């Protein structure tokens, strides 16, 4: 049993903390306040972070990345998220799919895509699964019905596949250069057996981005529609087997790729950053703001709220580190999923309590407290919805 960090882990953590303090936090509320969803993203912070390795740190060294372990990745996500959860996610989303490239792509594909990805500070990755009519059905397809689930169609035509359909709510869609796209290649069989995954560059003919969604939280982190109208993708861009993609992306067999496992860790490590921010901010506020001539901290109800905030946060930190370590050891475990579900409860309760401690000042809520609660609400449909919880429960032996 050893909770101490290696020198390398510690130095990544410190690097992230410095970058978060000096570069991210100063722009966080500004980016959040931008009204037009298409304008919340700024390349400047991505480029700066990329130069420090925060875009490519999950890429193996042999392909030019930093090949950090999961514990380091968790530490960095938390530090970045403590300054801005959405900006942290904008970086880690690239790790998620570079894990997938490592796990599922051929050497030729890695050569074609990882090399330019590593070389270009503005090369951002994404993955399209969800569609307007198919969200949870992709995660937990009904046992008794092959029809539900994604509908985007891919048909073979010589050396190419022709893609038609739409994706919705796709993270990084408006800014990404390369996407993994799940498409139905056999509509006659249940979802798990009829899906193929494709690598689709953003400049693919017939492929374009539609609206950018106007999210209430995570405003920096963009999320958009994808439209495929006879989009042509070379057969060489098929990831894994034809009709074999769901297994690889973790939808069915689950837990077989780093990419899927990473997704659970990512959400709980990021939530931890928000919790850290809320705890520190609440404590600082309680120890400086006054009420009746004394600092707010002397109020018993404030102390009790702060207690709950820190207790949940430290429980979450312990859990996140354990999950990261289990990933590094490739231990098969339901803990990553449980930690993700738990992080939803924790981040929402902690940010609500922070709001409560701030109270409405001068007729309005503090922008920072309001932002954290809006960011935390994102977890509700990503990490804490009933489908996600039931799916995790079914993994418990």
């Amino acid at each position, binding site marked *: 049993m050893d909770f101490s960090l290696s020198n390398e882990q510690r130095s990544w953590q410190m690097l992230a903390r410095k970058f978060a303090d000096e570069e991210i936090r100063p722009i966080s509320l500004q980016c959040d306040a931008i009204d037009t969803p298409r304008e919340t993203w700024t390349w400047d912070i991505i480029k700066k972070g990329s130069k420090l390795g925060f875009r490519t740190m999950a890429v193996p060294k042999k392909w030019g990345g930093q090949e950090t372990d999961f514990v380091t990745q968790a530490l960095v996500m938390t530090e970045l998220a403590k300054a801005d959860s959405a900006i942290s996610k904008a970086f880690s989303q690239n790790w998620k799919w570079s894990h997938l490239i490592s796990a599922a792509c051929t050497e030729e594909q890695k050569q074609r895509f990882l090399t330019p990805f590593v070389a270009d500070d503005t090369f951002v990755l994404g993955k399209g699964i969800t569609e307007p009519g198919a*969200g949870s059905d992709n995660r937990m397809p009904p046992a008794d019905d092959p*029809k539900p689930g994604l509908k985007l169609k891919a048909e073979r035509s010589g050396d190419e596949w022709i893609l038609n359909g739409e994706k*919705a709510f796709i993270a990084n869609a408006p800014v990404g250069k390369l996407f993994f796209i799940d498409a139905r290649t056999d509509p006659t069989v249940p979802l798990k057996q009829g899906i193929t995954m494709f690598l689709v560059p953003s400049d693919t003919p017939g492929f374009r981005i539609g609206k950018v*969604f*106007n999210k209430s939280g995570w405003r920096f982190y963009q999320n958009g529609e994808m439209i495929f109208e006879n989009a042509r993708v070379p057969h060489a861009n098929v990831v894994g087997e034809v009709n074999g993609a769901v297994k690889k992306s973790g939808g069915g067999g689950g837990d077989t790729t780093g990419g899927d496992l990473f997704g659970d860790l990512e959400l709980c490590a990021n939530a931890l950053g928000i919790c850290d921010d809320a705890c520190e901010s609440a404590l600082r506020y309680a120890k400086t703001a006054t009420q009746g001539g004394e600092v707010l901290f002397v*109020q018993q109800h404030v102390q009790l709220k702060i207690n709950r905030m820190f207790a949940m946060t430290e429980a979450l930190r312990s859990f996140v580190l354990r999950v990261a370590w289990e990933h590094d050891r490739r231990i098969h475990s339901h803990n990553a999923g449980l930690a993700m579900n738990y992080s939803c409860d924790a981040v929402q309760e902690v940010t609500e309590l922070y709001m*409560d401690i701030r109270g409405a000042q001068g*007729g309005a809520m503090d922008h920072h407290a309001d932002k954290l609660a809006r960011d935390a609400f994102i977890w*509700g449909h990503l990490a804490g919805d009933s489908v996600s919880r039931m799916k995790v429960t079914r993994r418990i032996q």
Partner: protein
Amino acid sequence: MYNLHLSAEQLEIRDTVRDFATREIKPVALKSDRLDVCDRRLPMQLLDQASQMGLRTLALSEDRGGAGADHLTCCIVTEELAAGDADIAAVLATTSWLGHLLIDRLMSDAQRERLLPKFTGDDRFHLAFAGHEADTDTRLGVNYHRPASAAAGVRTTAVKAGNEWVINGAKDYVANAPIAKLFAVLVEIAGQLKPKILLVPADAPGISVRAHDKAWPHGCGGDVAFKDCRVPADNLLGDDAAALLASIDAPGEGIPLFQALNLGIGRAAYDAALDYAHLRVQGGRPLIEHQAIGSKLAEMAIRLEVARATVWQAAWASDHPEAIADRSLPDLPLQTIAQVFTSEMMVKATKDAAEIFGAMGVMRDMPLQKYIHDARVCLHSGNGNSEAKLRLAEIIAGYRRPVQALAAE
């Protein structure tokens, strides 16, 4: 005798207002550009329409041109309006309630003769109560159950100068301030033991209004400053006025108008989630047929029905203090109870409703995020629930705050 039948008038006005909210308010309020909580402008035209329906003068007595609605009716109307739009509900609740207090209960005949025609004759004649001294903190806090410091007195002063009063000072958290045409202002007059109320028209010389950030309070609020502001001598209300207005502090305390508003927000979210759960198919069946979703909707329905029973009880009680005297109801601040309970439950209900919408539930241009935001505003309005619980605790404990401390609050 205990009886939960609504009157024919109550049922009718509920239908009328519900219909108005559905047909007129929602199409405007739920337009995606107005859903952006950071840029919500007050839909003045809908407020005009509501005024023409009599909702601005709802509580004003019938013989003065109002609807003479009792507290319960006012709460029912406020819920229905808020199910359409919380801002509209807030503005109307404030004006209607102040209209009744000022005109029916506090003005002299002469004052009434002067001001009533203006009030009833102008759909945009809104009212505001400027009671809270700027930058004062009236929370009990560590002084819970001990005498409060008397620091927080009324600091806005009025001095007689010829046939006029000259007012100096500043008030904050004034609901309706940016649109009010008449302010009731709590002032200290040198030589007088108790504070008084002066009526100040919005166009009086020396008054200035700074509107609040629109994102947070419901309706519209602001700060009001008085710099040698002059009003005619006979704008002074009688001795009872300050006590009546100050004891309720802000319109909606004592009578649970803002809890009814809160309820309307929760109901709108619930209705939206219920509709969506019927429509959206997942796993081959409508969402509502999934146990987990059905249970969530049931929990929301429970919160709504329980909260409504609590709000209605408090509304009726505020009109019937004799029911506390005869021990039909407990001698507790039922409006505070309704406030704490409703505000906590409605935040849960709106969040659960949004989660049923999945990714659509986090979008700023969809109604669900508006409902969550609106419910949070209620949760954190005033001094918050922690403070409300302390005030309740004092009463439970049988503690009586010294009069001096009370006056100072």
